[in-house]
């Protein structure tokens, strides 16, 4: 059996890579002494992939919002029962998630890995949809949507995306709306399945105290489907400007909530994406992190509190940085933060801050390897951006101030948008 072994001495980890005949890539990370084993089977298909050419035909279709997530729910259903029950019987806990760009099915277990892993690989290859089971799911997902409608943190986030993006489907709610999911049919779900659930568009990631040959030979035996060719995704042209500067919604909250964001209009992938993501994270940490003077000023002035966070969300198909939390005066706070971001775009980051924060990020990278689940998630996410999570270690070595300052000037000089949730 042919597979590659890559050693990362600094963090004491080993990555095993294998490619199945169908084009499916498999990654395995051995974690000696860990009881838990996690396996993921994911497809590079998420809520943003709503316009595409159906595999094997020339027709380009636009599918209802929320369909990738709907399909995720439905895959658990099989002709001879629900997969959730089957995993339960073996003591494993199965789950799945759908994000903007991926749908991932996974389980974790401590015993009977082979049986569980075989089941995972099998059911994801074999959807079983009926008109009846599709209808039934609408009630369940409807309640999931209703739950998110009442979640102020979720709403403030998506309302911001609606400000940032004019056309890009990243602004659409991952689960869709009650109205959009009502249009989902068995036939549409199969179109999506056959287009995106194809070996070359998917990945398998396994982490745990296992033997690489065992993991790979299960894949060898269980993968039956053939590649259906390259997936043709289509995203609309996204202008550099904002959709709108401000968005406001009223919900039952104790104090206003805000989220402020800036779009990154430069598209990169692979190692470059990891580098850019890290550079932006370091810079935001310098401007807005708990160690920054601005954080302390806003905190002492009572404009922010412990709920304040920032994030860098960078993907092949979209990118933005954002920050926010509770504030008695979102507009004033946003004005101060916007000013600081624009100023940093010109001034750049200091040598001292750069090396101090870089060190902290290296520490966090090491910490991530404490968790079997985190490793699996990060590997999957990086793979779908044509990168390797293990390269992040090299990013920390290669990143320098001049690159970082170039990225700051490209991103932080853009106009900021503000989303606010006000109390009823």
């Amino acid at each position, binding site marked *: 059996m042919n597979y590659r072994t890559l050693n990362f001495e600094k963090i004491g980890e080993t990555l095993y890579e294998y490619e199945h005949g169908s084009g499916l890539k498999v990654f395995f990370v051995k974690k000696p002494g860990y009881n838990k084993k996690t396996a993921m089977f994911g497809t590079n298909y998420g809520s943003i992939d709503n316009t595409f050419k159906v595999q094997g035909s020339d027709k380009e279709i636009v599918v209802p919002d929320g369909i990738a997530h709907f399909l995720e729910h439905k895959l658990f259903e099989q002709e001879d029962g629900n997969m959730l029950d089957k995993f339960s019987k073996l003591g494993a806990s199965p789950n799945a998630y759908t994000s903007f760009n991926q749908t991932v099915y996974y389980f974790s277990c401590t015993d009977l890995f082979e049986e569980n892993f075989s089941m995972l690989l099998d059911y994801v290859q074999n959807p079983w949809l009926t008109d009846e089971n599709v209808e039934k799911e609408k009630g369940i997902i409807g309640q999931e949507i209703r739950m998110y409608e*009442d979640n102020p943190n979720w709403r403030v986030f998506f309302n911001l995306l609606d400000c940032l993006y004019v056309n890009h489907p990243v602004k659409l709610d991952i689960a869709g709306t009650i109205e959009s999911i009502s249009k989902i049919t068995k036939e549409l779900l199969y179109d999506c399945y056959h287009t995106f659930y194809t070996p070359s568009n998917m990945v398998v990631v396994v982490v745990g105290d296992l033997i690489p040959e065992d993991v790979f030979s299960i894949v060898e035996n269980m993968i039956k489907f053939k590649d259906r060719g390259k997936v043709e995704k289509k995203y609309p042209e996204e202008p550099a400007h904002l959709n709108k500067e401000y968005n406001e919604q009223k919900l039952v909250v104790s104090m206003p909530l805000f989220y402020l964001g800036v779009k990154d209009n430069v598209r990169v992938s692979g190692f470059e994406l990891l580098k850019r993501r890290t550079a932006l994270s370091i810079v935001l940490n310098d401007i807005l992190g708990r160690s920054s003077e601005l954080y302390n000023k806003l905190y002492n002035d009572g404009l922010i509190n*412990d709920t304040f966070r920032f994030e860098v969300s960078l993907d092949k198909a979209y990118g933005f940085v954002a920050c926010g939390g509770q504030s008695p005066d979102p507009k004033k706070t946003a004005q101060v933060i916007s000013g600081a971001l624009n100023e940093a775009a010109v001034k750049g980051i200091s040598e001292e801050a750069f090396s101090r924060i870089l060190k902290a990020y*290296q*520490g966090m990278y090491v910490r991530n390897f404490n968790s079997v689940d985190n490793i699996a998630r990060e590997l999957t996410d990086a793979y779908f951006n044509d990168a390797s999570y293990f390269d992040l270690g090299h990013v920390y070595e290669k990143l320098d101030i001049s690159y970082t300052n170039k990225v700051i000037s490209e991103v932080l000089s853009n106009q900021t948008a503000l989303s606010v949730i006000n109390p009823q």
Partner: protein
Amino acid sequence: MGSLAGKTMVEKLTEKQGIQFYRLKSDKFNTTRVDIFFVDDLEKERASGNAILPSILKRGCGKYPSITELERKLEELYGADVGGGTLKKGEAHLIGFRMSHISDRYTFNNTRLFDECCNLLMCILESPLTEDNGFKKSVFTKERDNLINYIRSRINNKIHFSLYRCIEEMCHGEPFAIPEEGTEEDALLLTPQNTFAQYKEMIQSYPAYVYISGEVDDTSIQNFIDNFLKAGRGDIKSIKTPDVKKEISEVKRVEEGMEVNQGKLCLGFRTQIDPCSPDYYPLVVYNGILGGDTHSKLFQNVREKASLAYYAQSVLEKYKGLMIVMSGIEAENRQKAEEIILKQVEDMRKGNITKDEIDATKKSLETGMKAMQDSQGAIVDFFLSQHLTNCADDFESTAEKFRQVTIDDVVRVAQNIQLDAVYFLKPKNFKEGIA
């Protein structure tokens, strides 16, 4: 250190001045951590005072008198973490402080991080910012404002809010009804001086548990312990154990309207079982079968069969012997959902439990017991819980007790589980709108 092959062990290092020191042994993690828990009774007059302490102490200390200075130091120590918070376990109020850092072998030049990080932890714990026999006024005032805002913001998360309200109604008049941050009216009574006095009580008289885990040598541990005990302590407070028994004469029903889309239904039950009782293990299995996981009766019947909800589950509060069933539903389905839920509870009582249901639950508990040992935080929490309840079982023997549970055991504990309160957060004809 040799491989412990997935085994997790605890060693009691010493017990002095009401502080128990433990070493948690597991060699697979690449971080080292210290967790300290001070324990107080959960009381209305003291809850806010306890809750505010970690927030004030995290604001800075003698050598690092601001968040900026403290956080920059932590970043230099490879993103070390020093922090704290409060939690309640039954009617015990815990004030926790923690420190963690990556193991020395991952640093550039094998930098020794443990001593420096412990110094930082001790700095925030022992040298807070003070003036006029109290906490520094500006810091205190800000943190009291933040505490009050936090108490008010409970309403933001509707799932937590409905759970909190259900417990508050169900346990009215019992200490367990007191939220871990206390109430707004009690927070308003705090002053820099009376809060500082409570801080001194914590340092000098609350019983405490300390857990050290990860790669660290014995000498460093000993130095840390000696340093910790240096200041000396007074008389150690004794902590009450909660009463898990309650006679229920009538089910309390509370309905509150709010401008939300989804209704939240919470059913509170008394199990009458205390955490040290042999019946605790069948109770955990009972909860698993009823609403613990995707194979459970609630998930299967409320969600999969009736399609009424996205989530329908039951959770146990171990220390107070409570079980809460929670589900998010359309207002019009409230009656139907409650009927289905109560039917499942009734089926448990009647012994309508299949072998598949109990087997799946026991397997999932076994998986959980093993998986817990892959997280340093979960290991600390497991042993803390054992020590608080004076249970001597470790992971292995706890898992064994779950394995021994039979359907008969489950049905036996089911006989004493009684509905006490039903809480419904009811949507007020609310349509979401974006301005």
